[in-house]
């Protein structure tokens, strides 16, 4: 009751404040409000990074909502909303305490009730959350600022789970919002992060506006990705959705926007020549291209047919089609894991190295019983990365004597079609393409695409008991050496099974105006500590 009354009074107060705020923007603009104009990779169509896993949605959510822990640039989870934690020696009891002075954008204080409701919603959707939920005896509040997980199995990766950046992210929302069905999108965008979302200024498909949250109290440490002090040096961050690459390039050259998240690589040489612009690799962890086959139906239910594709697949062709001429932007990837990370291994990846063997592939296909039936290739032609991969695959399959039925579709249709387990001739499919952020391919926890649990696995439904055993071994690994061993085995078994076909590792550029300082390399745009001269 009390809480509700309080809520009402703060609502009234915030109403007054926002009423005053209405007159503000024009005044503030006149006095030269600090505004950052940012062109995101895609349209921001929703804002729920728990119910959905789109990267652009996650990027926006990370500005609005804060997390209990946050990963830094070394992928280590550091306390963020939490002051700290205690963990029992057997990794079964985790106790956390919130920092003081945390408030939501509506003025409400952040309490453990909000935290527990948020975590409960998140645990339903997230792979790591589900692991926690499976062995959860209780998730309980000790007081307004302390809460505790009691598990019946050890779980050593708790901090990473709470602080990881890949969606579903463990975002802390007010209890009333966190009560939303985890499979439904939230409709109120109130967080406790460094910026407020201006729902009234949101024009989906065109622009989104974030406004500095005055009551946000950044941590004392220096900001580092999702950890440390998230100091906002802008009053407003305006996202401008520019779906046309030529237009986005023009807007950046003309100074109409400050920062373009994903410039087309062929335009980069031109942007680099412009003295007012800075161009650099955005995310050192890059992306892994993926050719995904349907393991349920012939010919790709036979591992020999899948291996035939791998034998003939030229990653150089795929990568050049995807990122262009710049050799700095891609490398071959005889692995399922992100190069440059601690557990990286090329175990089992020899099949992707050396001269491509078309004749061998044809022979293997014949052995697998392939007799020229049409291979249904779903290609999302509205997304340049999937379209380029699809075009190369059509050429590749032709070279190994397969009969291709290239289906030009939009991403919405591919998303629906790939979920169908029907036979390829009856509404199903044989191959589709996508890509995975390298930051998600550092270990099996966020890496749903590598799971080989058959019916429950990701689209394509690969099944391999060996792969599943290797994933379990990683979860149980106590130190880096054990993790490395488990991952090497997992890589080898995944190649043996051809869970999917990696088409290479590629990086993307970001471009920004030289008047900005503090832009960092990260798997997501980091807006704190960036300022404009």
């Amino acid at each position: 009751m009390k809480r509700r009354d309080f809520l009402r009074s703060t609502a009234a107060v915030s109403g007054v404040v926002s009423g005053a705020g209405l007159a503000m923007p024009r005044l503030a603009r006149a006095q030269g409000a600090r505004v950052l104009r940012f062109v995101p990779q895609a349209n921001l169509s929703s804002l729920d990074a728990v119910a959905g896993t789109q990267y652009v949605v996650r990027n926006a959510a990370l500005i609005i909502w804060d997390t209990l822990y946050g990963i830094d640039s070394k992928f280590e989870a550091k306390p963020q909303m939490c002051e700290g934690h205690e963990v029992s020696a057997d990794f079964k009891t985790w106790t956390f305490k919130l920092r003081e002075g945390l408030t939501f954008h509506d003025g409400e204080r952040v309490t453990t009730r909000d935290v527990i409701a948020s975590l409960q919603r998140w645990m339903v959707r997230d792979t790591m959350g589900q692991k926690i939920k499976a062995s959860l005896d209780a998730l309980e509040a000790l007081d307004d600022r302390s809460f505790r997980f009691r598990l019946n199995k050890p779980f050593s990766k708790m901090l990473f789970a709470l602080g990881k950046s890949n969606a579903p992210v463990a975002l802390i929302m007010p209890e009333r919002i966190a009560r939303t069905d985890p499979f439904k999108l939230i409709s109120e965008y109130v967080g406790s992060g460094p910026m407020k979302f201006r729902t009234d200024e949101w024009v989906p498909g065109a622009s989104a506006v974030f406004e500095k949250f005055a009551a946000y109290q950044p941590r004392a440490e220096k900001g580092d990705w999702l950890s440390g002090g998230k100091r906002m040096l802008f009053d407003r961050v305006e996202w401008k959705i520019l779906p046309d690459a030529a237009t986005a390039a023009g807007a950046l050259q003309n100074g109409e926007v400050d920062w373009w998240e994903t410039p087309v690589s062929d335009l980069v040489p031109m942007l680099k020549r412009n003295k007012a612009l800075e161009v650099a690799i955005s995310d050192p962890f890059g992306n892994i291209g993926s050719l995904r086959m349907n393991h349920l139906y012939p010919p790709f239910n036979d591992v020999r047919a899948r291996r035939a594709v791998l034998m003939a697949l030229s990653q150089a062709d795929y990568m050049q089609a995807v990122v262009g001429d710049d050799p700095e932007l891609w490398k071959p990837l005889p692995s399922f894991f992100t190069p440059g990370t601690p557990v990286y291994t090329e175990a089992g990846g020899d099949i992707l190295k050396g001269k491509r063997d078309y004749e061998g592939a044809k022979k293997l296909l014949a052995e697998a019983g392939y007799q020229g039936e049409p291979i249904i290739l779903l290609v999302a032609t509205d997304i340049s990365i999937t379209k380029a991969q699809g075009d190369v695959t059509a050429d590749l399959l032709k070279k190994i004597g397969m009969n291709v039925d290239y289906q030009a579709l939009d991403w919405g249709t591919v998303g629906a079609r790939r979920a169908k387990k029907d036979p390829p001739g009856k509404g199903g499919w044989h191959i589709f393409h996508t890509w995975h952020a390298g930051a998600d391919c550092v270990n099996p926890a966020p890496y749903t695409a590598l799971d080989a649990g058959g019916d429950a696995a990701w689209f394509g439904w690969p099944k391999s008991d060996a792969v599943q055993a290797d994933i379990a071994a990683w979860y149980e690994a106590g130190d880096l050496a054990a993790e490395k061993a488990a991952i090497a085995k997992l890589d080898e078994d995944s190649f043996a099974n051809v869970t999917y076909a990696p088409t290479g590792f590629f990086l993307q550029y970001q471009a920004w105006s030289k008047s900005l300082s503090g832009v960092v390399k990260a798997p997501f745009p980091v807006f704190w500590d960036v300022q404009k001269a």
Partner: protein
Amino acid sequence: MFAYTIRRIIATIPVMATVALFVFSLLYIAPGDPAAIIAGDQATPADVERIRASLGLDRPFLVRFGEWVWHIIHGDLGTSIFTNLPVWHMIQQRLEPTASLMVLTLAFSITLAIPMGVVAAWKHGTWIDRAIMVVAVMGFSVPVFVIGYVLAYTFALQLDWFPVQGYTPLSHGFGPWLSNMVLPSLALGAIYIALIARITRATMLEVLSQDYVRTARAKGLDQRAILYVHALKNAAVPIVTVIGIGFAALIGGAVVTESVFAIPGLGRLTVDAILRRDYPVIQGVVLLFSFSYVIVNLLVDLLYTLFDPRIRY
């Protein structure tokens, strides 16, 4: 005429109902899935299924259509599946930019094209005629996005006269609004300049060869009077028809123009909504399009009677 107007307005209801049902069933058969898009690339198949159920997308066609109609009757266009914003709100946000683009495009086209067509017909067969027609034909032999890029490159990037992209609401001043809209309106207008100039020329030629015009000419009436009083007035019917017809086509061109110049208009809203299968938004926008189309064409038909009293209703 008044009764006719009323009848026509009442007749819009079946038109809109047909369009709504047609689009709804088309979308229903189409395999796209908003749940898969919301879930994102990494979601598991089971998650996608749950999301679909929570959106109510697994219910039968008639139930969904009936529910939607029920809401429409109560003046509610529904809420977007993705943004959870009311559809009417999303349409309102986008109305001004698209309306501005269309009005300016039509204004540019008519003021440029009708004199071009009249002069070409008057000087029929001469080099003036040919030159005008070649210029007009250029307008629609190049796709709108190529014209847009060339205009943006020349007048925004090189000469820096206008911004490359964006939209400034009229409430922020006429100057800024116009400077953002000049290039898009010209790009989109090129095809209408060509179209209206051609039709004007063709119908003017027709009218000029009619007996009464030849009689007027023979009587030595002032050339300009013949042109304005007889010819242009009679040529008005097909010209008005073309403008009415052009309205629906404008929407198609607007989609591309809005993308090239990043104008937050209805065209882009529609394409985004179709690509994402945001059913309530598509439905709302299509209803709006068919409604405004019907109204525009009603006006066109009423203009017929104004220009050509021989046509009765």
